[in-house]
């Protein structure tokens, strides 16, 4: 498995307060990695560390297999584009001029890439309009176009849909999905809009108080968030027989000697009767219907 980014115990402290604490994350090539955490959890700081904007206080990271301490890290950074917090554009310049400046900084002398980049992000008709007169969505798209100069293999986006209207959010989402599918660009994205993130991400990292709590794939998350009914019973030994033969249910899982989870819509009364008839006591029934938000809140211990 090829990793675009791996961090090992990455740590950042401000005045003895750890804002990033021993974070070890792994992003594979081709993934859209959703970085989830509350305000001040440390998402942006991790991104800044990876982008080389701030110095670390511990740990290390590898970008495209190049260690951050090595001379080759700048070469690896050239394969990376990023937007941290706000798009970095010169407000007094047009979209074309902004891209040209970025092209020059990266040594791309062929200006033909600029119109195609503008078209790709839907800014081909901005003409002489200065970036200062762009809407937030347009600035965001220009920021993404800037990040795409140099044809990066990995882009880092910190809250790219923050403050956008619903249409803007959809446009950015579509754009990112296209980048991932058409150009095979690996994406690290953080967002507060978890519902939106769940439409994009193929993998998640949950961070809280500077600690990476969990990394989980979208498939695993879907499994964990699947709508289900969890039963606490006296004994699960005969439960499969009762559910399959008695009720015709096949989509369930025995979790332990006393717990079973059923993943289809069931009538609880029928289940209770069937179990009772089979000599099994039903102690408790718990319905589970989580989304990414619920999963995250459960993980970090509630809304507090």
């Amino acid at each position, binding site marked *: 498995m090829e990793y675009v980014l791996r961090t090992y115990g990455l740590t950042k402290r401000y005045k003895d307060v750890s804002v990033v604490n021993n974070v070890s994350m792994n992003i594979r090539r081709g993934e859209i990695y959703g970085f989830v955490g509350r305000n001040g959890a440390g998402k942006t700081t991790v991104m*800044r560390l990876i*982008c*080389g*904007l*701030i*110095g670390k206080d511990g740990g290390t990271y590898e970008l495209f297999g190049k260690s951050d301490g090595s001379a080759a*890290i*700048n*070469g*690896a*950074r*050239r394969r*990376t*584009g*990023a937007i*941290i*917090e*706000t*798009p*970095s*554009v*010169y*407000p*007094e*310049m047009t979209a074309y*001029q902004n891209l*040209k*400046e*970025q092209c*020059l*900084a*990266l*040594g791309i002398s062929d200006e033909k890439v600029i119109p195609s980049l503008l078209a790709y992000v839907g800014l081909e008709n901005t003409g002489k309009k200065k970036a200062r007169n762009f809407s937030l969505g347009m600035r965001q798209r220009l920021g993404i176009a*800037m990040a795409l100069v*140099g044809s990066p293999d990995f882009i*880092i986006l910190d809250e790219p849909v923050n403050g956008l209207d619903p249409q803007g959010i959809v446009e950015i989402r579509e754009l990112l999905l296209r980048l991932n599918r058409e150009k095979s660009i690996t994406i690290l994205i953080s967002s507060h809009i978890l519902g939106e993130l769940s439409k994009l991400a193929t993998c998640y990292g949950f961070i809280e108080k500077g600690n990476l709590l969990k990394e989980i794939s979208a498939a695993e998350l879907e499994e964990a968030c699947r709508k289900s009914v969890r039963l606490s019973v006296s004994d699960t030994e005969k439960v499969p027989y009762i559910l399959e033969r008695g009720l015709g249910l096949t989509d369930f899982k025995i979790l332990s000697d006393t717990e079973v989870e059923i993943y289809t819509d069931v009538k609880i009364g029928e289940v209770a009767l069937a179990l009772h008839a089979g000599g099994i006591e039903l102690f408790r029934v718990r319905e589970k219907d989580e989304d990414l938000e619920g999963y995250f809140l459960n993980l970090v211990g509630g809304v507090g």
Partner: protein
Amino acid sequence: MFKLLRADFYRAFRFKIFYLLISVNALVGLISVLNMYSYRMAFGVQYNAVRVLEQGMGGGFSFLGILSAIIVAIFIGHEYSSGAMRNKIMVGCGRSKIYLSKFIVSAVMCVAVYFSYHAVNFILGSVLLGWGDAVFSDVLMLFLAGLFLTLAYCGIFTFISMLSKSTVLSLIFGILGSLAVLMAVMILLGGLQGEYIADPNDPNGAILVPCRWPAWLQWLARAFINVMPSGQSAIISMGEGSRYGLYIALSAVWVVLSGAGGALLFRKVDLK
């Protein structure tokens, strides 16, 4: 490095403040030439283009330093406020190269502003005032001293702007710093000149008592005046400069120290 320079020059040529300050300094040059011409008409031929050249080094109030501070602070400060500095670091341009590119481009702009004053003097001043009996090599050294003075200012202000990351802070430090140093230089110059006291033999007269500071303090004061760009600027503007070679060397030291130190420190700067 070459790529960064191309990108920075691309922006510099679209930097309106740069053109504004070129115009302002050219206008100051024009006023200086016309002013000197009026003196020439009134008092004689000693008021020539050399005096205008000397006054172009700051005019006694570190004007060159103030102009340089404005250019560098706004050019580099805007790079931070727009987030473009982040962009360059994130794509692996290398911090030392970024620093040096910013310094070189700022220096070119500051020198262009310096030239704008002297271009007016070299053209209009030559016609209206002439160069008197000035020797070419002296005029050249004086011009080069001003050029290096400008580079020294630029080096120091680039250092401040790159490390402070703020346009406002850089402007305040740059302008007030130049003026504060100038004030200190003026106080020291006054002290070194000695003081006038009443002449006991002549109720209407005064006599000059030489400076009574210890020798080591006088040496320190002179060193401070010569080393500081605002000090050099004040001395040259007053027409009392003579050690132009020394000024050039000291300014070059400022450029090297600020460039090397700034590039080194910039590698440790955290960017938001």
